[in-house]
């Protein structure tokens, strides 16, 4: 069991309101990702759920019981920190054993759990090493192991992959997803990387300045963003925003079109411009096009498109993929 319900939760540090009252429901077994730019309050929100920060107002319910004032240990949640927070003077085995020892578990049962966790996480050969002798990815796995053995009702991840290099990050992403599928425990995952959010989440919570902008599945957010912020934040490369004549033609204050939903043409099109830098990735080509009115537009074209710097091209948005926004930035 691992359902979490936040009602009217808010947090202020002194006079600064970091999180205005918000409601959120997380169902049992869900993989929820909190995503947003840095300073949007996503880590604070996670720490509120963990019990590492006190609520200013509101209530938190875990598995139907009120946990607003419960200590972190009593909430039955396990957390993986950004810095891994391993205990440096203890071996890997002792690190993983620590929560069990604190819970006063019988050592035979504890050993069984440690060995099982080590097997799942490929740590069996490293159990007697100290954290300082491990690589970043291994430390990350130890931190996860320490969380798993407690059999918590939910896992909390605070930007766990941000200290890893790109290749390892992709690997660990898969491992965590895999883990979620095998354990089927609720996971709450905080990241500023929308790619991680899109690839891992069942449900994404987009935060901005402490407010929840939108909650939904990755594809929902991609296809139907409720406002300009979500539209610009989700998807890579970023959505292009155009205002002026072409927006008015569509009865909107501004329109947004994703780079992958623009057709390139050599002869005619709605917009014309000159090609700036083009990034050839092989499978795709990212074009930075300077329109005639001076604005920049990113285009994601297929990899076999051959264009030169300074070449004149025309762009056509795919009409059914155009997002329209009103003056307040909300979707129409």
């Amino acid at each position, binding site marked *: 069991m691992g359902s979490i319900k936040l009602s009217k939760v808010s947090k202020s540090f002194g006079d600064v309101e970091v999180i205005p009252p918000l409601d959120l429901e997380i169902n049992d077994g869900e993989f929820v990702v909190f995503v947003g730019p840095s300073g949007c309050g996503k880590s604070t929100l996670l720490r509120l759920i*963990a*019990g*590492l920060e006190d609520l200013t107002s509101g209530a938190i319910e875990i598995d139907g019981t009120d946990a607003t004032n419960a*200590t*972190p*240990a009593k909430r039955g*949640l*396990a*957390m993986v*920190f*950004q*810095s891994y*927070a*391993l*205990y*440096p*003077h*203890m071996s890997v085995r002792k690190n993983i054993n*620590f*929560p069990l020892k*604190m*819970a006063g578990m019988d050592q035979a049962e504890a050993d069984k759990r440690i060995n099982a966790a080590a097997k799942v996480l490929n740590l069996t050969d490293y159990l007697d090493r100290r954290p300082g002798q491990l690589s970043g990815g291994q430390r990350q796995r130890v931190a996860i192991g*320490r969380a798993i053995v*407690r059999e918590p009702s939910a896992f909390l991840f605070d930007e766990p992959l941000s200290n890893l290099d790109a290749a390892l990050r992709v690997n660990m992403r898969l491992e965590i997803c895999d883990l979620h599928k095998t354990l089927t425990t609720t996971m709450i995952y905080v990241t500023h990387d929308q790619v991680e959010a899109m690839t891992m989440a069942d449900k994404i919570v987009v935060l901005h300045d402490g407010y929840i902008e939108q909650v939904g599945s990755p594809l929902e957010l991609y296809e139907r963003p409720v406002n300009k912020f979500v539209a610009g934040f989700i998807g890579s490369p970023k959505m292009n925003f155009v205002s002026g004549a072409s927006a008015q033609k569509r009865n909107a204050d501004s329109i947004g079109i994703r780079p992958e939903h623009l057709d390139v043409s050599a002869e005619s099109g709605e917009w014309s411009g000159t090609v700036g830098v083009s990034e050839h990735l092989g499978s795709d080509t990212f074009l930075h096009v300077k329109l005639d009115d001076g604005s920049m537009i990113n285009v994601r074209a297929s990899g076999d498109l051959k264009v030169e710097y300074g070449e004149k091209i025309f762009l056509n948005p795919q009409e059914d993929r155009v997002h329209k926004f009103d003056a307040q930035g909300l979707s129409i």
Partner: protein
Amino acid sequence: MATQQSRSAARLMMAPAVILLLGWMLVPLTMTLWFSFRKYLPLRGGDLGWAGFDNYTRFIGSSSFWPSVQATLVIVGGVLIITVVLGIILALLLDQPMWGQGIVRILVIAPFFVMPTVSALVWKNMFMDPVNGLFAYVWKFFGAAPVEWLSQASMQSIIMIVSWQWLPFATLILLTAVQSLDSEQLEAAEMDGASFLSRFWYLILPHLARAITIVVLIQTIFLLSIFAEIFVTTGGAFGTKTLSYLIFQRVLESQNVGLGSAGGVYAIILANIVAIFLMRIVGKNLDA
């Protein structure tokens, strides 16, 4: 710095400093060794020639020798225990966010800036004096007979004075160590269900091990040679005669330089024995 030329240049330029430091150490050491084998009584005929190992056997054979070694070790041990234990507690308290933190920290450090002679005098006259001292007032207030600190509890008094002086040093070093502990580790332990005592025992104390080692080593070096506090308070009476105080008495009060020098050599040996034991016990914390 790899070429032959730059290496010899470096050696040449470092030579003055090295020679000065070597001389600084070697000259007094050689003189002490030299005098320890001479019968040298400045006011009773001066250098009276070769004495062999006489000074050594007389110094160690004196009835004051073993008690002075014991007094030295008791004072060093007592002060170390008090400063480390209280230092850890104070460091943990000072690490908490509180109002007026800066001023409190300066106040805590203050005793370290007071000269040993001055602090010993302040303690002797203002706190421990059986007639006018603050402690005497407290005792009288509760209807008890004032303690004559420096004669009845001389050892404890000296340990108290010296601890008061060295507590700021221990607190300061331990506070910086406490502050360098990753707060996420403590939070992780909190989530793991560790109580404050478990967090202290399993996380904070191991983290402090290296700082404690440094405090113990540095303090031992200085505490083996404390002198002013004893000179000002008990004058070596009531069982507070340490080895360094005994040497002082032999050289200046008995005017026997040869005997005192032999004591000095014993003091070097004692310091090295203590150092070896300390390195065995705590030195491994400095690795890694």
